[in-house]
């Protein structure tokens, strides 16, 4: 079966004035559909950059990236935006909810941007699974960190993305909320065969995944 993610000799170099900073120095990674993969490594090892490239937020400098059959080498910014809209769900460490919208509308806006209209059945199922029904009319400032992250997870998966990319999803949460959020991501992975790629510092969080990929200095050192 074709892998849902396949990178080969993936490199990313940031240019800061005259200084070139290599963030990825040739990453080879294969992820199968339905897998839950944790990427671990120290700060600055390139995990976030890898996640941003796989999510189409930024382009690679060289190397090949195939995500769900899409070759990033032939995609421009607009193509990657379209790809992100339909195939990717993001969960961030800082939740990144829109502060002026209620939890309900923070979730619904993802469907609005996707343009396929509001799907009430999917919405109800996700809301119940994540246990946020009582909080739907609250704005982010009125929610705890754990509740905000659950809303963010709901927003990320409401459009049935092919891949859920989670960037330190438990980084701002206490142990209890971290475990709850990880359990939910695990549950999404099992129930909906949701492919998950999660980057984390936390070994306990990584342990929830099917597979752990370790990175250092912009390279995968163990898989």
């Amino acid at each position, binding site marked *: 079966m074709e892998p849902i993610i396949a990178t080969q000799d993936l490199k990313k170099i940031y240019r800061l004035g005259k200084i070139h900073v290599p963030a990825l120095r040739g990453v080879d990674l294969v992820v199968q559909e339905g897998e839950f993969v944790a990427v671990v490594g120290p700060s600055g090892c390139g995990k976030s950059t890898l996640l*941003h490239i796989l*999510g189409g*937020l*930024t382009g690679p400098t060289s190397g090949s990236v195939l995500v769900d059959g899409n070759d990033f080498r032939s995609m421009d910014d*607009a193509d990657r*935006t*379209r790809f*992100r*809209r*339909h195939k*990717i769900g*993001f969960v*961030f460490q800082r939740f*990144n*909810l*829109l*502060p*002026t*919208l209620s939890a309900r*509308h923070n979730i*619904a*806006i*993802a469907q*609005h*941007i*996707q343009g396929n209209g509001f799907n009430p059945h999917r919405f109800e199922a996700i809301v119940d699974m994540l246990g946020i029904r009582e909080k739907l009319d609250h704005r982010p400032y009125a929610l705890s960190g754990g509740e905000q992250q659950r809303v963010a997870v709901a*927003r990320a998966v409401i459009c049935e993305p092919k891949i859920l990319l989670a960037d330190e999803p438990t980084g701002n949460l206490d142990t209890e909320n971290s475990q709850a959020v990880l359990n939910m991501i695990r549950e999404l992975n099992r129930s909906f065969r949701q492919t998950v790629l999660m980057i984390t510092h936390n070994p306990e969080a990584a342990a929830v995944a099917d597979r752990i990929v370790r990175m250092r200095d912009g390279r995968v050192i163990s898989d």
Partner: protein
Amino acid sequence: MVNRMILNNILHRPIRTAVSVLAVAIEVGMVMTVVGLTTGLLHETAKRVEGVGADILVQPPNASFLFAFNSAPMPIKVGERLTQIPHVLAVAPVLFQFNSVGGINIIYGIEMESFDRVTGGFVYHSGGPLAGPYDILVDDWFAKANHLKVGRTLNMLNHDFRVVGIVEHGKGARLFIPLETAEDLSGARDKASIFFVKCTELGYSEDTIAAIHQLLPKYQILSIKDYMSMMTSNNLPALNAFITTMIAIAVGIGFLVIFLSMYTTITERTREIGILKSLGASKGYIIQVILREAGLLSAVGIVAGLGGSVIVRKLILAYFPTLSVDLTMLWAFWAALLAIGGSLLGAFYPALRAAQLDPVDALAYE
């Protein structure tokens, strides 16, 4: 969904919203008031001249249709020749005097008898006609603005005039003095600035104009209809330039404030834009959100500006009763269009900048 987000953004930042709305309201109010005042004054002046009741205006060669700019009077005997033309019912000579007391006005120096024949006579609110050389008639608007009553003294043209009558407005000028006094004061003995000619029937005015042209080939002869059609800002290049300048300033204010407002909004909401981009929002979607927000601010500002211009009109008329402010639907439409156009233009660069933000940088923005 977008509407809700825009509305919440607007309500979430009340000071920014209030300043933006106020700027657009000032823009719309300024356009409406400046245009309303200029066209109102022109229109009201024209209506007053029409209210004299003459069918034809006879002025010296090269005279302006703006009476205040006329200086070279005609021999008063011309009037006698005009009365002999067929179908002429009455001719009223008038000598203009420029006055700046109690507002800028033209004083009509008139002969009561001939002026009454053309106009059908004044309607007196109080007092009666001119009798003595330093008597003056004032119209009710001027009397109200200057708190005048019959018997009061009014100093103008370096002389004390006694108010002998307060008349209904709309008969050419707001102030009327005897023709002879006006001649003495201007040193123009037996001269007139204009002849108001009334025909026996309106249908004869074309024939009469032709006859007057034959009699006075170089004179300026206008039917009242032609005069009315000339009293627009389009025929006054300086006034048009003034209106255009004022409109440009007003639109500039709206443009700059909306530009600054949306520019600071984009900076403040960089992270939110990054979130929308991470959800797959296209450049067009981001631009649309920003422009719609500017459009909504502008729409509220337009409503406030139109309401404000009605209030300003009431205040102007309360404090300056001799002025006239014409607020028209046509100019309300133009003011709204200019405000929307200016706002969208002002918001376009910030919107474009937001759309071009790098999503990774935007998400990392503190």
